[in-house]
């Protein structure tokens, strides 16, 4: 490498309180105009590392050793004034959550041109003209008026692009992008990703792209650094890392990464006899009186069937009504019309009207165990409540039952005495699932239960569900926005779009031979590892949208 724009040398960052290193002896360099990706799971230290490129160390952390050179000047020994004049002007940051990173009380335009103004680069009207250009480049709708809007008035995908505009406003030499598309739907991600890639090219800026998603990285980065627990595992050109990984951690990451490619789907199990659950013509929504003409309709005339020991995945973008449908089936959201039958018996609309046995047979598992599990209770208490309510068993037997259930979710018996805060994210999700299992249900509704987990952990949860289905004949409705997971696990897929199920059928058929234009776009938006996929997919998407039979995408 001839010239190094950013040169991180043997950097170690540790926690002030525990002295435990978060980043350990990492070295990396970026040449001008180069895109380098850092790949890692949560807790790998990738954000901490990325922020050092702006000379920023979060409160609670400190630099133990090493240097971070920007064009030869050490950012870690710079004074506050020098750092301030560098930040936003020479190096700019794009955060994961645009919704949290925009000040809710200031107009978008003000915030986008703020870096240019505080650094005194250009006068306000010139900055505004430049921002307008960037809005066009990033394909933002209605660029002329977006600057006078407030952050809550635009969509998540738009905010993410606006944050990129904010970062590029001063024409920085280096962009640090921290998981900039992770919070977005795949159909939204593809557009944002393409806009980012194009804008980075046009600016001639170098970029440090932080992500956990190999496929996304393979589309945008020239080189990849794999980070695990703060230590560099390996480094090399993107395609080389993906095709011929050397480090064992990279291989684990790649194998856990259930890359869905056309053709590779789970073998369906034969469905015989009458369905376990039938939902017919369900319409539901929110408003003051949801059962009689809801003001906002979330689910519209939906039919669904689930057989014993089968898995039906419901996929679709956020806001498409997936969770609302699960809430209707669970009895948490009374439907405005339609019927639900469980093994031939019609179910009352609400939890209050259903019998205890009906409640026992359908259990729901929510996305976030942090919210679903009572932090003051031990695992034994959490599971015990479910056992007492549905099992009616004696207190003395409960200890043994708790051990059995923990074994079912592959956790050691001594976890019974722990509280949720003493468990890892994956372990908490297992307890969350165990709480549902304690009721001995026949159908479990899983609402995005792997979405917040790292790839490796998510894969192990899916393995667990697969085993539960095989051994106990459990049926699952598996709600996810992650098509790869659905493809690897589901017998049947239902695609939801704006409250309706637009396509339903065997996984193989829906994913490999999609009929509805929305399904086609959705399936084609799943990032693939091969080079050049992004541009090709974006092109196909334009064609589909042009002839899409009324399909429009939220952005």
């Amino acid at each position: 490498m001839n010239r190094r724009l950013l040169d991180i040398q043997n950097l170690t960052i540790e926690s002030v309180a525990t002295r435990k290193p978060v980043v350990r002896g990492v070295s990396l360099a970026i040449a001008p105009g180069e895109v380098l990706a850092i790949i890692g799971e949560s807790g790998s230290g990738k954000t901490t590392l990325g922020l050092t490129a702006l000379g920023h160390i979060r409160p609670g952390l400190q630099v133990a050793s090493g240097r971070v050179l920007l064009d030869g000047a050490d950012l870690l020994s710079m004074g506050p004034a020098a750092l301030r004049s560098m930040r936003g002007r020479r190096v700019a940051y794009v955060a994961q959550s645009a919704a949290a990173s925009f000040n809710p009380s200031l107009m978008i335009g003000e915030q986008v041109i703020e870096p240019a103004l505080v650094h005194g680069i250009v006068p306000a009207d010139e900055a505004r003209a430049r921002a307008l250009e960037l809005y066009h480049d990033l394909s933002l709708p209605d660029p002329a008026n977006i600057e006078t809007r407030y952050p809550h008035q635009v969509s998540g995908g738009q905010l993410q692009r606006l944050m990129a505009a904010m970062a590029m406003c001063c024409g920085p030499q280096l962009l640090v992008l921290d998981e900039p598309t992770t919070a977005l739907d795949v159909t939204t991600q593809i557009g944002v990703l393409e806009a980012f890639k194009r804008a980075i090219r046009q600016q001639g800026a170098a970029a440090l792209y932080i992500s956990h998603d190999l496929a996304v990285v393979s589309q945008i980065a020239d080189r990849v650094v794999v980070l695990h627990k703060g230590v560099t595992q390996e480094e090399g050109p993107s395609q080389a890392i993906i095709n011929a990984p050397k480090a064992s951690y990279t291989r684990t990451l790649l194998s856990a990464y259930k890359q869905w490619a056309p053709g590779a789907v789970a073998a369906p199990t034969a469905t015989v006899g009458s369905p376990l659950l039938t939902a017919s013509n369900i319409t539901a929504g929110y408003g003051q009186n949801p059962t009689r003409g809801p003001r906002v309709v979330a689910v519209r005339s939906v039919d669904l069937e689930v057989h014993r020991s089968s898995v039906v995945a419901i996929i679709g973008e956020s806001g498409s009504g997936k969770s609302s449908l699960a809430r209707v089936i669970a009895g948490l959201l009374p439907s405005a019309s339609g019927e639900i039958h469980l093994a031939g018996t019609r179910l009352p609309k609400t939890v209050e009207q259903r019998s205890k046995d009906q409640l026992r047979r359908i259990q729901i598992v929510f996305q976030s165990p942090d919210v679903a599990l009572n932090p003051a209770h031990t695992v034994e208490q959490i599971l015990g409540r479910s056992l007492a309510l549905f099992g009616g068993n004696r207190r003395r037997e409960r200890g043994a039952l708790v051990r059995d259930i923990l074994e079912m979710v592959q956790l050691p018996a001594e976890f019974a005495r722990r509280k949720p805060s003493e468990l890892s994210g994956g372990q908490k999700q297992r307890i969350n699932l165990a709480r549902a299992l304690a009721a001995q249900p026949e159908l479990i509704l899983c609402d995005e239960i792997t979405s917040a987990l790292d790839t490796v952990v998510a894969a192990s949860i899916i393995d667990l569900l697969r085993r539960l289905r095989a051994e106990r004949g459990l049926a699952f409705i598996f709600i996810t926005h992650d098509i790869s997971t659905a493809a690897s696990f589901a017998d049947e897929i239902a695609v939801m779009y704006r409250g309706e199920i637009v396509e339903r059928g065997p996984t193989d058929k829906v994913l490999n031979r999609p009929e509805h234009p929305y399904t086609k776009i959705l399936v084609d938006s799943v990032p693939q590892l091969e080079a050049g996929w992004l541009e090709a997919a974006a092109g196909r998407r334009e064609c589909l949208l042009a002839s899409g039979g009324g399909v429009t995408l939220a952005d």
Partner: protein
Amino acid sequence: MLNLIGRRALQGLLTLLLVSFLVFAGTELLPGDVAQAVLGQHATPESLQELRVQLGLDRPAALRYVSWLAGVIHLDFGVSLASQVPVRTLVMDRLGHTLILAGLSAAVAVPIAFVIGLGAATRPAGVFDRISSIAALCVSALPEFFLGTLLVLIFAVNLRWLPAIAYVTEFRSFGQMVTSLAMPVATLAAVIISQMARMIRATVVNVLSLPYVEMAVLKGVSYRRIILVHALRNAVGPIANVVALNLAYLVSGIVVVETVFVYPGLARLLVDAVSSRDFPVIQACVLIFCAVYIALMLLADIAAIIGNPRLRHQE
């Protein structure tokens, strides 16, 4: 937004109506007979009865409430039983004094609380933060009557700099106003400064920990601008809320302070009226205090609505 504010204002009026009922019911429940209190121990049963009829006390309570309320709406609070002067005249005499005292206390307290709160928030756990937070805790732990008496002991009795009582009927000069009001204002301000400073600090510290503030740091925005533009813009709603709540707290503080310093304000009138069982005066004073309190709460709500762009730009 106007819709929302209108609804809040309506709720405020309803609360006031409910309060008027409670005030009336409360004075009804007070022990003692008005006629007896007015005529004294040696009144004959006949004269007592005659006075009751004259005052309308023989009518049912509900009827008396309605006619009282009708008067209140026209700002007619009846006639004082003790002095036979219209209550409105009594109240108007005193209201000005109380407003001066409360207004001065607020004018002194709010800016000082802002400076202390923001100063402490910019460097949490710094020297200034620690000192100010210990001082604020100490002051807010002291009741007004103790603080007031302490000030009198130091500045009036020992140092003899200021008069011990603030009994003034009119202010003849600015200097005289300052010397007579210094201690009452200091007492009232000290308590609300400590509360407001702590709440302002907490609000600003909370806002400063949010991701958009880190984003502003990473954009190269100066610390001053982060505090004054990014943080304060979002903290202004909650802070205005805190300020309004503390000004409402002045309402109760003023009763104590006016008594301690023998200041001829509305609260003093109320305390005197209670001891002479002058019901119309009690009702008028309590109702005015409650109305002020509700108005300040309404202001706090409106401040919170204006401070939140989601509510401000509601369709």
